[in-house]
């Protein structure tokens, strides 16, 4: 494997974790909006 491929292999995981964090934050905002709209906890 080339140095470039190995670098990508090491650094892809924090990038993926950042994407998951973004999805979770969007999910949380939607959860809050739904809770406010329906009046449920």
């Amino acid at each position, binding site marked *: 494997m080339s140095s470039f491929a190995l670098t990508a292999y090491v650094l892809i995981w924090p990038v993926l974790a*950042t994407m*998951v964090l973004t999805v979770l934050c969007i999910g949380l905002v939607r959860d809050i909006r739904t809770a406010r709209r329906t009046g449920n906890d």
Partner: protein
Amino acid sequence: MFQLSTTTVVLLLFGFYGLTFLMALRIGAKKENVDGYMVANGAIGFGMSAASMTATWIWAASFYAAASSGYKYGLSGALHYGFWGALMILFIYPFGKRFRELAPQAHTLAEIMHARHGRSSQMILAGSNIVGSIISLMVNFTAAGALVAVLSPLSFIHGVLIAGFGVLSYTLWSGFRSSVMTDFGQLMAMILAAVIIIPMIFFTLGGPQLFTEGMPRLNLEQASFFSKTAFLEQGAPFFVAVLAYAIGNQTIAQRLFAVREDLIKPTFITATVGYGAIVIGLGMLGFLALLAGVQPMDGDLNNLIPQMAATYLPPFAVGLLFIMVIGSLSSTADSDLAALSALVMTDIYGKNLARGRPNPTTMLWVGRLTMITATLIGVIFASMKLDILSMLIFVGALWGAIVFPVIASLFWNRVTNTAFTSAVAVAFLMFVVTRFELVSLHGAMALFFELLATLGGGVVIGLMAFGFFGRTAGLALGIVATLVLAPFAIGHLRDYAVLLSSLTAYGASAVVCTGVSLLSNERFDFERIGERVVAFQHSDNNESNPEEKEINACPVSL
């Protein structure tokens, strides 16, 4: 090695637990609902539940073990820890949808077993869940002590005590609801720390240049992405345990019962990706240490991550790592406390002592007393510095004995209580015999266990396929897997006692459970599970009296 000052560590710990406590206070109600205490409102949204599942499944041992695997097995090492660990979350969700369909108001999986089979099957499952959660609690408190001892002048016992009572303080009042509420913040802290620490260490070590200089240090197996050693020693035993850990762990079941039913799939898929990314990413630190020629302190691979941080990171990043590990162990420990309280409230008090007619107030205090007792046990045993992680790995392998009987019971109407209990008992016995080599694994005896283990391998693959693709695909893939595994297993598996014993547990439980069930003519009506598993408290204090909640939002104001 660099250490944080006592003042810094105390500020970080009290800051972390103080903020977490304040988060938990926001949802505290004067009179908690017992069902809410165990499974929240049963309709938690995607963001909260996916974050909670991810944070719960990531514990301190995930980081240390993934890095150890990366250091020991090289290129594929971290993958063989994180990937299979992530699949534990993924492969349980199809079965979770079935649990919810059968018993929408369930609190524990053992409670469903009580409705399906009766007390003995229920207590087998509840007992194994309780043992698993108590051991997990000890591991997390031990990790807190070890982290504080390595990265600060404070002692091991200081770390254990602060973590134990910190976690208890914010979980005690609202139970599972506190656990889910605080998981989101804890996961954010973990991800942000990981995203900063991994690239920082990589570039401090020289970036891409590290591969040019470091790859010659690796042996052939470590340099191979498809290392046979890594798969057989790390990947395969973990792969076999995928369903066992998921079924044997009440923290997963609790989230399956708590998330909004139509959100089970996206929640668990997101948690799978999140867990994999964080754990494999931190496991890469072990691989980088191997490339850089780092020698683990005192020869202990568990020291790799703190050692790498202390050697290559500036003080603020060491503080970030400290918070990341504390966040990971706290989010799992609070889930273990919530799981233990639900198991004792439902399966010991609710279904047995109170015979299905529990007093909600008493039940709530049973849950809180369980948390206090479990924390004390966890702190005391963690202080003894036993090799608890090995104990958990042993118990995890043992859970293989209950996987087939539990899943079969919820899909096949012919499984009887006798079939369930006898299957678990025989599989447990077979597991112990092979794991500790109580009989000589040679000749016909070795062949017998290898055949059983080969069948066990087919059962594992078959169950996984069954969850996603149904009965025909499950049976077909199970048979194909058995036939493919046979030439590799027979004559060879006797040299891998850990793998042999785990697979034997699956094979033995499947054979006995199926055989005994076929001897009976009983047919179970699955509709009865939903009728028997109901909420313990019908009036919801949180909804029926919102003014009271508003006035008494803080439990310490009572």
